[in-house]
Each structure stands twice: as C-alpha cells, then as structure tokens.
C-alpha cells in the first residue's frame, strides 16, 4: 500500500531530464548562439565574397584565402602579432610568474598589500589605459620623455616611431593585464605544499633551483592557462590601443591580425576576406596551442 501519492515512473523519468537540462539550457543556448554558431558562420563566410550590403553573397571558393595569403598587409599583421605576443609573454607571463613566486615563497610580510596594489590596474578599462599612456608617451611634454631628457637619454616619439610603436602599445596592454595574470599565477603558486619547498631548502637548493625544478613543474597547469590566454586574449587586448592611438600606423607599423580583420570588416567591407583571415588566425592559434601542448605536455603536471 502506498501512503503518499507518488508520481508515476514515466513522469519521474521525464522530470529527471527536465531539471538538469533546464539548468544547463540558458548557458548552453547563449554559448551556442553567440560563440559556436558564429564560429561556423565565419567559416562559411570565408568562402564567399560579400560587402554586407548586397542581398546575396557570392561563392568564391578559396579565393579569399589565396588573396589574403598573398597580401603584404596580412603578413605584416602576422609578424606584428608575433612580436606583440612575444613581448606580452615576457611581461605578462614570465614577469608575473616570478613576481608571484617572490611574493608567495620568499616574502612573509605585506602579502595583502602587494596583492591589492598589483591587481589594481587590471580593474581599469583598456581605453583608460590607452589614454593615460597617450599622455605618458607624449613626445613633447609627456613624463616619460621628460624623464629621459632629464637623464640625458634619447627620447623617441614612441607612437609614431616604426621601431618603438609595437613595444609601446604592448606595454599599455601588459600594464593593464599584469595584475590579473599575477593573481591567477599566485593562486597556483600558493597551492604548492610548503613541505615540498622546505624539503628542497634542506638540500641547499637555491631559490632559483626551487622555482625552476619544483615550483614551475608543479604549477605548469596554471602557467599553461595563462600562456594560452596571453596568446589569444593578448592580441585582442592590443587591438584597443591600436585602434584608439595609432589606427595601425605609422604606415601599418602597428597593425596586428585582430586589427587587420577589424579593418577588412568594418572599414573596407570585405567580409569574406576578413572571415578568411579570422579562420587563418584561428588555425594559427590552434596550431600554436597544439604545438605548445605537445612540447609542454611532458613537463606539465596536473594534480588530478
């Protein structure tokens, strides 16, 4: 005899699906609609010629890809992207990694003070960062050049110099992203059991040996994440100062792939070419990540 009225087994089975999928549906729908579908859509667009206005796109096969791969602008943007990325890897992976190591394992006071202040710039907008640095870099009266002149050093016009424009723009992005990467790396570093470090200290291992042979392998999962984000998000972040301060100039000396795609889409209305460039970018990133993963996999240690 049943005391309480139970819903039938069939209803229970349906309900069993309803709740979990109901929970997942909103997030999955948004991600599918605005991340994964556009991915497919861009791929499709890359085989068409279209100016966003004409009613029907025209199928052109691989023409967009071929033209892009033959264009000087694309390769210029490609090499610049590489240059930006290398600078960002130094300033937004290596430097915060070491800073976080010092803070987590070599210094025992003022942890909160350092964390709070180092994270501060990363809550600012890249637009704000760009405007601040536009002033700092000002060739005539800007503080950077005023200081350089005071020290008797050459004071180049940062943003209009072929040689300096990329490092100058990269520094803006690096300044804004440093704190975030620092905190993420710090989170990985403080999770390394203190006993392991102590065991190494008993062996007379130097701080550098402890970092390189124990801490780094044990936090390589976190580092890999920061590396991937620096490569992908970094070139996206650099876009803001490029667009705001130099517009790719002087004479395309500061373009990168993201800016290139943006220009082709919204300035030149060559949607197909832009899509092709986006797909190529994705393939390059994907290939790069695959390579890195292969190379790093041996050294990467996952806790689980």
């Amino acid at each position, binding site marked *: 005899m049943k005391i309480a009225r139970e819903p039938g087994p069939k209803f229970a089975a349906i309900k069993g*699906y309803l709740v979990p999928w109901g929970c997942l549906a909103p997030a999955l729908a948004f991600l599918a609609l605005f991340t994964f579908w556009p991915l497919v859509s861009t791929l499709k667009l890359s085989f068409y010629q279209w100016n966003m206005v004409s009613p029907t796109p025209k199928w052109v096969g691989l023409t967009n890809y071929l033209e892009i791969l033959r264009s000087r602008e694309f390769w210029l943007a490609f090499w610049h992207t590489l240059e930006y990325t290398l600078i960002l890897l130094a300033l937004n992976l290596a430097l915060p990694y070491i800073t976080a190591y*010092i803070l987590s394992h070599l210094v025992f006071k003022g942890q909160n003070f350092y964390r709070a202040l180092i994270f*501060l710039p990363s809550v*600012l*907008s890249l637009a704000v960062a760009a405007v601040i640095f536009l002033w700092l870099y000002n060739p005539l009266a800007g503080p950077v050049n*005023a200081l350089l002149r005071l020290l008797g050093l050459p004071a180049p016009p940062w943003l209009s110099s072929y040689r300096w424009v990329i490092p100058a723009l990269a520094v803006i992005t690096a300044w804004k992203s440093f704190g975030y990467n620092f905190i993420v790396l710090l989170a990985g570093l403080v999770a390394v059991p203190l006993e392991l470090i102590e065991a190494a200290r008993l062996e007379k291992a130097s701080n550098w040996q402890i970092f390189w042979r124990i801490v780094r392998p044990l936090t390589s999962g976190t580092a890999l994440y920061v590396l991937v984000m620096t490569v992908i998000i970094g070139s996206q972040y650099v876009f803001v100062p490029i667009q705001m301060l130099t517009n790719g100039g002087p004479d395309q000396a500061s373009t990168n792939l993201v800016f290139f795609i*943006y220009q082709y889409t919204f300035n030149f209305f060559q949607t197909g070419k832009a899509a092709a460039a986006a797909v190529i970018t994705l393939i390059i990133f994907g290939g790069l990540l695959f390579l890195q993963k292969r190379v790093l996999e041996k050294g990467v240690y996952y806790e689980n």
Partner: protein
Amino acid sequence: MKTKIPWWHFPLLLVVLGSLLPLIWMLATAWKTPEQVFNASLNPWPYPATAANFAYVMGAIPLGRYILNTFIIAFIVTAAKLLTSILAAYGFTQFSFRGRETLFYLCLLSIFVPFTVTMMPNYLFMSRMGWLNTYTGVALPQMADALGIFLLRQSIRSIPPSLVEAARLDRVGHGRILGRVLLPAIKPSLIALGILFFINTWNEYFWPLLMINDKSMYTLPLALQMFTNLEGGTNWGAMMAAATLASLPPVVAYLLAQRYVVDTFIHSGLKG
C-alpha cells in the same frame, strides 16, 4: 642576526611602482592647470590644484548619460551571467548524465574562441534584428560566461556533499537546495564573480565599439575615445580628468570588495 627577508621586497616594490605610477600621473595631471601640465609634467603633486578639468569634462560631454548607459549594460550583463552560471554550475554538479563532462569541456572551449571569429556574424545578427545602438545588442551575446561556470562549479564542488545529501533525504526541492544550501555557502565566490563581471563589462571597448555609433548610446570607454579625438591631444588635464571619472566606479567597487576578489582567485584553484 642575518636578515635576508627585506631584500626580496625590493623587486616587489618595483612592480607595485610600475603598477601605480601611471595612475598617479593620471590623478596628478587631472588636477593641474595647462601650464603645470606642460612645464612640470614630472611633478606628481599639483599645486595649487584645480578642479577646472573636471568641470570642463562635465560641460563638454553628457557624462551622466554615459554613466547611465554603461551602468545599465554592466548591470544586465552581470545579472544574466551570474544567473546562467549558477544554473549551469548546479546542473553540472548535482546531476549525472551521459556526456556531462564532454559538455562541460565544450563550454570551457568557448573561452578559447577568439573574438575576431565571432564578431562578424554576431554583428550581422544584431544588425538584422535591428538591435544596433541598443542595450540588447551590447548585452545579449555576453549573457553566458564559461569562466563563471567553471569557477562556480569549483566552489560548489568544495562544499561537503553531505550538506546537499541531507537536504535530499528531507525531500527538499531543487530550488530550495540551491537557494538555501548552496548559494549561501558560495556567497564569497558569487560576490567576487559578480564584481569581476561588472568591472569587465564596465570596461568593455571592442564589442560596444561595433554595436554603437549613436553618440547618445555611448558607454564610458567609447566616450573617452571620442573625447580624446575631440581634444586632439592637447588638453591633457581634461583628458586625464575624464579617464579618472571613467575609472572611478570599477576602482571603488574593487577596493570595497578587494579581499573577496583576490581571495576567490586564490582559493578557486584556477588551473588550466
């Protein structure tokens, strides 16, 4: 006694200095007269200080309107992201079904899809729907966030399962388990994530740039760009004042909840 500890503070202080100097110069320049700006750009202490730059910015652009625009968008996006992330994290932790892990990693994969690949179709979609120059257009594509799902999933997993199991034995419904048991337990993570979402949306530049060209719909970063072009790189005091005003809300939000934000990252065990 040999003391070696203080030495390591030196590189850290250098990093702090590097982080703060640009901000210090922004603040200093914002309070300077044009003469002070040009003649004493290295002096970090404006004396006598002037508020004229701030007054000028307020007069030149409808700052109130921009703050409102930015706030509305940031608020909608933050609320939506939190809601979808909470629900998804609940779904990914409290039920087991075939393909759950695959689906979760598929979600995570979205973090690594570059914006350049998605911006064009999304722009076309919004334009076709007639949502250019609207809050909807800016907010809609950002309403789910894989990082949020990931972090909340981590937080929920760190709660002892017996808490939820005890509630289950008492036949507590899903809504109450979520509202009365899980959410209170992960409150610090929620606050931190909320602040992070808010700050990031507040600061967003690229997507609003594509969505909005009607000046009355500008967000603060776009307004700052417009103001910079307007002043043509001469009126530095006013530009720094505008930058200061645009940064004030996120900085205040961060300072108020600084411990939450930083601690959540430290304890979430964010790993690749």
